[in-house]
């Protein structure tokens, strides 16, 4: 099947029919090109979505209180739910094996001043664990630690933008900056992959802010990450248990979504995964349909070629060519055209993706690319496609009656 003579014959036929070969090959190459580009685009969307979430740990859960919408447990609807320090401790103790990191959040706004420079920033007062939950990258100094919480220290970790705005060229570490008139010592600077706005944020110990704002033990929300070994079902199961427990504790109707919201990234992730899976399915489907058009094109051209070469096939048969040898010749030619043109399409798509893919970096679409498995699959599809395209024409060729083919009178 793979001897030199067969290839010589294939090259000869292709060489004598350059334009036809090119046109035929183009349809398949184009189909593969589109298929790869579609898959890469879906991949790009997926990358974009994942990138959006990457800002935070992907195993995080947020517990946010709200206002009840249903009367329950003797309380009327419209009751505001307030989380307190006890809630944090309660969760910690209730789920010692499920929780990886946990932190309270307390939100405030601060007019920050350093020397002549002032600016308005949002402050998130947190526990030390918050660094891991939010994936905060401290580039200089340190994050808030336990000692800061216990001492209710007036310290702050400021975003890169905040440091730029207030300190210009000075090194902020160890300097004192005023938040609403109260001096805080800068202990660290952080950056954030998410966006610039996140870098206009200030982190401070939660205990410090609770004391400043009326010596309270109230917290705005709780952020936590669950055991990273959990799979999706376990994660969803855990957040459900957490929600039931918290609703019972605050006497909220189990079905009341407004009273308390437990938001699980895994769930959102799950939604996005199925969304992109559907998109991928559509991409593959459309790509295949286009590929079928290409295959039909090749089959069509092969039928035409056989018709044109009927006489030659007749001669070959008269000279002793077995039907199988004729079938092989046609099939190999078909597979060859399909594979080569498909590879050209694949290579083209791959080159374009390699060249511009990394430059595309938008929130919803980033670095479209194809994996090796897609390339391998495409190759297998191409070879199968070539065989399919050549099969009918080959059988037709094998059934050529030499006597009919040779009758030239």
């Amino acid at each position, binding site marked *: 099947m793979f001897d*030199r*003579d067969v290839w010589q014959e294939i090259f*000869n*036929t292709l*060489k*004598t029919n350059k334009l036809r070969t090119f046109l035929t090959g183009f349809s398949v190459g184009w189909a593969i090109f589109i298929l790869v580009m579609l898959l890469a685009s879906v991949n790009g969307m997926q990358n974009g979505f994942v990138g959006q979430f990457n800002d935070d740990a992907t195993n995080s859960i947020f517990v946010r209180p709200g206002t009840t919408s249903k009367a329950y447990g003797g309380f009327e609807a419209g009751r505001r739910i307030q989380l307190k320090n006890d809630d944090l401790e309660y969760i910690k103790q209730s789920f010692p094996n499920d929780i990886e990191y946990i932190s309270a959040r307390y939100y405030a706004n601060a007019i920050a001043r350093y020397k002549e420079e002032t600016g308005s920033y949002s402050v998130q007062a947190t526990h030390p664990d918050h660094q891991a939950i939010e994936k905060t990258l401290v580039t200089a100094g340190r994050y808030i630690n336990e000692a800061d919480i216990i001492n209710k220290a007036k310290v702050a970790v400021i975003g890169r933008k905040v440091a730029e705005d207030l300190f210009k060229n000075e090194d902020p570490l160890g300097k004192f900056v005023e938040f609403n008139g109260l001096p805080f010592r800068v202990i660290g600077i952080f950056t954030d992959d998410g966006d610039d706005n996140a870098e206009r944020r200030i982190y401070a110990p939660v205990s410090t802010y609770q004391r400043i704002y009326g010596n309270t033990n109230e917290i705005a929300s709780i952020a936590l990450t669950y055991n990273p070994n959990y799979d999706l079902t376990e994660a969803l199961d855990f957040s459900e248990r957490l929600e039931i427990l918290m609703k019972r504790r605050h006497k909220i109707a189990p079905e009341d979504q407004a009273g308390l919201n437990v938001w699980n990234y895994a769930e959102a992730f799950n939604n996005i995964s199925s969304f992109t899976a559907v998109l991928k399915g559509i991409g593959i489907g459309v790509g295949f349909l286009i590929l079928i058009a290409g295959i039909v094109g090749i089959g069509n051209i092969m039928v035409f070629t056989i018709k044109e070469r009927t*006489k*030659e096939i*007749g*001669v*070959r*048969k*008269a*000279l*002793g*060519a*077995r*039907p*199988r*040898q004729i079938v092989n010749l046609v099939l190999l030619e078909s597979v060859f055209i399909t594979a080569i043109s498909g590879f050209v399409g694949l290579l083209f798509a791959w080159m374009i993706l390699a060249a511009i893919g990394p430059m595309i970096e938008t929130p919803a679409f980033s670095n479209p690319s194809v994996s090796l498995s897609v390339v391998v699959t495409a190759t297998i599809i191409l070879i199968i496609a070539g065989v399919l395209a050549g099969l009918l024409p080959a059988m037709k060729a*094998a059934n050529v*009656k*030499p*006597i009919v083919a*040779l009758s*030239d*009178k």
Partner: protein
Amino acid sequence: MIEIKDLHKSYKMGSNSLHVLKGINFKVEEGELVAIMGSSGSGKSTLLNILGMLDGADSGEYTLDGVPIKNLSETKAAQYRNKFLGFIFQSFNLINYKSAVENVALPLYYQKVPRKERQEKAMQYLERVGLKPWADHLPSELSGGQKQRVAIARAMAAEPKVLLADEPTGALDSKTSYEVMDLIQKINDEGNTILVVTHEEDIAHMCKRIVHLKDGVIVEDKKVEQVRAEQYV
């Protein structure tokens, strides 16, 4: 070499069938040069096609070199054709994208002769038909007579038992016709069995025996004094 007994063949032409061969009995010994003559429609080409295993007979017996030819599968027919028969066609039927030597080597390829040996053998046969210098030329670069000589070399390359020539001079002028017949006579002189279908009297008389076909039966079968083509060349 060839033995045919009561051979019948008819073709379906729409609703009515055309009885082309109506009981042919015919024997060819080894080393004979036989002309099969007849006007068009006499069944001579049909007979040749059946002899060449390109077509099957409806009834009758056909034995080639002691092998009964009957109910052959496509693959088997291809094998027999390759082993027993060499074809020479009126329109040469060379493969136009292959050079002369590649055309000659083609039957050897189907015999699975190794490439190098094939090439050497093909060259030998080209030399015998006097076309060695044209070995690398494509058919389109050759004259009609040269093409037919390449075709003859190709038919002989596989060293068949019988050469079947269907109007080998039909597409050639008389001078080249005689050249081709001269070549065929010389091949016959070496002991090869050759059947020539023709409707030209002078070509037929260059054979050793003439079989006349009319309306599907043999009307005349006679040995003739062979006219050597050499003298006209």
